[in-house]
């Protein structure tokens, strides 16, 4: 039976998978280490950054831009509760109390939602801005074109009759 030559494109994709897996394992290792060394912190961060973890799982785009935005804003909202946990003695009961506070949880998850929304809206706004600039430039060029054609008796470009 003849040996099949591997497709380079397929091998490229296959080669990329181990790196992703290694990052996941590294992240898992860090999370496991934190859970072993600081369980209250791990509990609090795990709950508050739950949407970010979910976004990391759902976002399949290269670089996970949405998950990145969700995580950053989620982390920003988690700084204050984490500070409170550490100031209040860094205990599991303190972590549970904080998680029981709807204001803390709502703020963190709302920040995560804002991060997702920002990641969705920002490209749209940028695209709209670029299109507006293009339309403006096109109008400007067409006006210049018409003026030149009339002034010099030249044939206007196609579609500009």
């Amino acid at each position, binding site marked *: 039976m003849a040996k099949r030559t591997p497709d380079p494109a397929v091998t490229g994709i296959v080669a990329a998978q181990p790196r992703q897996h290694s990052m996941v394992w590294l992240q898992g290792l860090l999370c496991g280490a934190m859970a072993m060394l600081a369980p209250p912190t791990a509990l609090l961060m795990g709950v508050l950054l739950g949407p970010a973890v979910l976004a990391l799982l759902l976002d399949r785009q290269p*670089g996970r*831009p*949405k998950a*990145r*935005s969700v*995580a*950053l*804003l989620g*982390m*920003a*909202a988690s*700084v*204050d509760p984490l*500070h409170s946990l550490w100031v209040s003695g860094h205990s599991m009961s303190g972590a549970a109390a904080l998680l029981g506070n709807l204001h803390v949880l709502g703020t963190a998850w709302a920040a995560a939602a804002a*991060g997702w929304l*920002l*990641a969705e*809206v*920002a*490209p*749209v*706004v*940028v*695209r*709209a*801005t*670029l*299109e507006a600039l*293009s339309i403006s*430039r*096109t109008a400007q*060029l*067409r006006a*210049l*074109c018409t003026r*030149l*054609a*009339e*002034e*010099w*008796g*030249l044939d*206007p*470009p*196609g579609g500009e009759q």
Partner: protein
Amino acid sequence: MANPAPPRPGVALIADRYAVEVGRPLPAVGGLAAFAAVDQSTGRTDLMAIQVQRHLPPRPRALQALSVPIDGLLTPLAHGITAAQPGSAEEACYVICLAPPGPSLLARPRPWPEAELLECVLRPAALVLEQMQARGVTHRGIRLDNVFQPRPGQPVVLGSAWAAPPGVGQPALFEPPYSAMCLPAGRGDGSIADDVYSLGVLLLCLGLGHAPLAQLDDAAILRRKLELGTYAALLGDQRLPPVVGDLVRGMLAEDPEHRPPPSLLLDPASARGRRVAARPPRRSQRAMPMAAAEIWDARSLAHAMAVEPETGVHALRSGAVVLWLRRGVGDALLAARLEDLVRHRVLDSLPDDAPGDAALVMRAIALLDPLAPLCWRGLALWPDGIGAALAAARATDPDASARLQEVVALELAGNWAAMRPERCDFAELRVQARQQHAWLQLRGAGGGEARLCYLLNPLMPCSSELMGGHWVTRLPELLQALEDAAGRVDRKQVRPVDTHIATFIAARSERRLDSELVALAGGGPDDAAWLAQIRILAELQTRHRAQALPGLAAWLAEQAGPALVTWRNRDSRASITERLQALAQVGYLAPMLALVDDPAGHDADAREAQVAAVELGRIDAELAQIAAGASSRASVANRLGQEIAAGIGLATLATVLVVAALS
């Protein structure tokens, strides 16, 4: 001396002094209308204005040579153009000369006594002819109705013959047969011997008391003269006084060289004693039928062949002519020469070579009768009359015009002269024929038959319809005629320099304008044609220091569109158009030409147009790039939006961390 007559307002004077009284017609002169004329500077009223016909131009050489008067001759005093009718825009050309001092000799229908013939007719007329010969001109209008006598017993006065081509008004009776057989306008200036001949006929008529052969038409008179000789043909069995008879016999000799010169006629006794032994023509023993007549001698045969060239070709090719000459006439030498001519023609000829056959007939006639004029396909003319013949034929006989053009195109005058070199200046005729051929060969505006016609007839008016009623013989008059035409024509449709005018200008100007005329004739772009027109007219206006011509300038400005379009820049074009209109109102063409025909400005305009075209291409490419860049813009927007979101997230995190650290 009479007081000067008050100048009449609104009537243009000829030579600034002669007024034509068109309301006082005089008897016609040689078929031309004549009117009384007044010298406004002296008040002299015994003048006559002879109206020139457009297709029969006057004789410039005679008008110039006779500017100093000759006693006994109605010499031309001036010639020029004035209104055909008072207050009319129609112009006419007149030749001013003295009015006849009395009735013409037609008014005395009785035989004149010999002494009066000699003293009142022969001597004064011979004196006039002698002076004309000294000035190098001929009269060519001596006939009963053009010779005048103030009172019985006084010397006669020769009438005017300057307002039309030489001999054009002469009946066949008064013309030598070799002139009478020509086209009326193609008789040429001839020689003073032709005037001696006419004077001889005049003496004969006066001696007899009537004009002979009055019952015959010109063709019959001509045939009779050729057959019998003029003297015998006209006199028949009538008798003249002995001295006059002897003189007239010499004056009517068929060969011009055998006629007594005018100086000899001043002494009738000497002239009478002069005998020239002219060999009588050989008469055949049997007649040869041709041209509905019986031919008895070579001279009549030549004339018959000239009248019916097709019959002549047939007779030549069949050998009948050679046989008749050899056996009937007994002229073996002439027969051998003619046979040689026909043999060469038969060897060289192609089937249906009509010009070749006509050339054979022409050469055969020249051999048969060396005194005969150039005969070509039924036409006869003397080479010096071809200009006037062309002018007349163009207006009245297109067929004759075409045949005359053949005469020029084939340089027949040179070929004809080569057959009879002892009778003419062969070299000069050949050079003239080549020159005329060259003029005829020029095609388009400024060439061809029209140019030939204008060149050979310096006083022939321009025949363009744009001239309206103007009589334009010189270039300065042309500009004024065009100025008037500008008010009549559709300026958008009609060009100021049409083909006739271009030809006229080419003929009347130096070669400096030839390049412009070529551009005008070349059928090139309209802008080149317009530029050629304005260059020509501006040159004429400058050269002749013509006054302002606002009408013509406006006409040219209205047709300037094609030339203005060559300016690419719209603003420049608008500016030039505006300035052109302003210059047109002033009426000088040279500044208009300089404005439109500006090479430096055109170069700059072309360069800037090229830059604009490049810029337009760049814009076009950029527009295409924008149109095709939607997907790339979406990609960029997506990436940039995500980066912005990440940046905001990082900034927020950093701010919160800093606040937490500080609190």
